């Protein structure tokens, strides 16, 4: 607004104009900074507000749910049949599916991700690293639905050749493919953590007569513990929160099992199933997804707190 007043000033005031123009420029620059500051603050506020809104919705809707279903049943019932006449709401059933598929995924992703990170950070020649990192990131960018169908139409038949009793929908192949999906996250973050370890520590190790492998495993990895732990936590969160792969490849039969060779529903795949079905809003059946979602959120929160604690506990002191 101040800029437009300057432009309309008559020409004979040009000297004044120059001076005041400079001053005004400063003032307008100040204004601009204020505006930017405000926009940034607003952006930060949006994310905080969104989080709060999600928590509010989850808690309030779950509140309605828990007025009909006692918490004791929710936690300890061994059946999950919210849509049947004889409805049961044992979250353990879904939780077992989530934990089993996540365990399978993590058994793939954590060791392989770590090995890849060690290789890329400590062994790979510069060229190999530069070429393989984008590929790794590409692997993380594949839509999960693609992974899901890969598990269903490729991996499961393959596994059935070895193990004919394996059902067409099973937690095992969903978990394995989910593990492959998570590898890039674990590898990339762990590699960053290991590359941040100062060269002086490596030199200290080599100077003591250590080999490259000894230096990597006994000095670099321990020095990067907190970063690697963060990578693992992210991997766990991804596994617990993964939806499409499980919805496609693991079947959606709620099944209290810790056997990966069974089919099963997870918290996330159940939520998709219900949300896609035509359940009347406000029915108890519909309300279950909020209770399930709240459970999922609490789990993720727990892992994040664990990650925070690990980072503090093993903070690098170089």
């Amino acid at each position, binding site marked *: 607004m101040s800029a437009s007043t300057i432009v309309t000033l008559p020409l004979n005031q040009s000297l004044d104009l120059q001076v005041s123009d400079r001053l005004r420029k400063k003032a307008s620059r100040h204004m601009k900074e204020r505006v930017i500051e405000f926009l940034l603050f607003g952006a930060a506020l949006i994310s905080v507000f969104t989080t709060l809104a999600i928590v509010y919705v989850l808690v309030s809707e779950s509140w309605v749910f828990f007025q009909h279903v006692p918490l004791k049943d929710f936690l300890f019932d061994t059946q999950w049949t919210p849509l049947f006449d004889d409805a049961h709401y044992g979250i353990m059933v879904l939780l077992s599916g989530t934990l089993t598929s996540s365990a399978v995924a993590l058994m793939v992703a954590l060791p392989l991700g770590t090995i890849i990170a060690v290789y890329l950070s400590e062994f790979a020649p510069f060229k190999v690293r530069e070429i393989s990192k984008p590929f790794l990131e590409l692997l993380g960018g594949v839509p999960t639905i693609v992974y899901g169908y890969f598990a269903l139409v490729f991996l499961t038949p393959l596994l059935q050749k070895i193990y004919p009793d394996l059902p067409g929908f099973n937690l095992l192949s969903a978990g394995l493919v989910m593990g492959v999906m998570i590898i890039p996250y674990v590898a990339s973050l762990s590699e960053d953590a290991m590359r941040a370890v100062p060269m002086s520590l490596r030199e200290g190790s080599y100077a003591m*007569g250590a080999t490259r492998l000894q230096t990597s495993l006994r000095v670099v990895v321990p020095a990067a513990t907190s970063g690697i732990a963060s990578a693992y936590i992210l991997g766990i969160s991804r596994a617990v929160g993964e939806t499409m792969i499980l919805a496609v490849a693991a079947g959606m039969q709620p099944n209290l099992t810790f056997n990966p060779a069974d089919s099963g529903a997870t918290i996330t795949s159940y939520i998709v199933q219900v949300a896609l079905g035509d359940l009347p809003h406000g029915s108890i059946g519909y309300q279950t997804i909020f209770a399930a979602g709240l459970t999922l959120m609490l789990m993720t929160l727990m892992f994040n707190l664990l990650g925070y604690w690990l980072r503090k506990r093993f903070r*690098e002191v170089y």
Partner: protein
Amino acid sequence: MSNATTINMDADPKLAIKAECRNFNFHYGDFQALKGINMPVYDKKITSLIGPSGCGKSTLLRSFNRMHDLYPGNRYGGEIVMHPDNTNLLAKEVDPIEVRMRISMVFQKPNPFPKSVFENVAYSLRVRGINNKSELEDRVQHSLKGAALWDEVKNRLNDLGANLSGGQQQRLCIARALASDPEIILFDEPTSALDPIATASIEELVVELCEKVTILIVTHNMQQAARISDFTAYMYLGELIEYGVTDQVFIKPKNKQTEDYITGRFG
């Protein structure tokens, strides 16, 4: 330089050469950092390398334990021969890990591993496959005593090495270097990150160590070189300008450049 061989040896019958550079050249890529270095390192003596920043002291020091092999693009020529076995440390068939088992190193900034005090010292033994508990305990204790650190840390062997003070950390690094019983220890400005009191204790320690081990030390501090070393080498722009018995180099330098540097007229 040729005057290396013309030093008056003061009739010391025990004076033996532990290692020597023979026409040693070094390149970082296209940049020649060392030019035709000829220099002896006497057994169980302290030899100090002095000279203005960037003259190649660290480069020369790190050539002895082949640290340069860790980075691509480094090239070197000539020989560094170790006695009494007359091994050329730079020869292709010599494993750098073997070299580093014989020649240990202490760095400018204390760099303890993210491990306990005990494990820091045990590291140089464990990488050699020594995992026997009582042997480790004996040798760790012996090395910590050798580094004048035992009394201060004997009750906190399980603390993180990084929790020690700067001077203690540097002595921990010395203990670590001692643990494997090396023949030579290389020090690269080991006190430049320390306060005067810690510096004095490290200097004292280095002097004690030379009864058992040969020491090659880079220092930017001429007083330190004068105080602790038996031999001094003055380097400038990648060349060895003067080498001799420390007193001689400091009192009657043969070279005008050396004199200027030592008297503080440049550097």
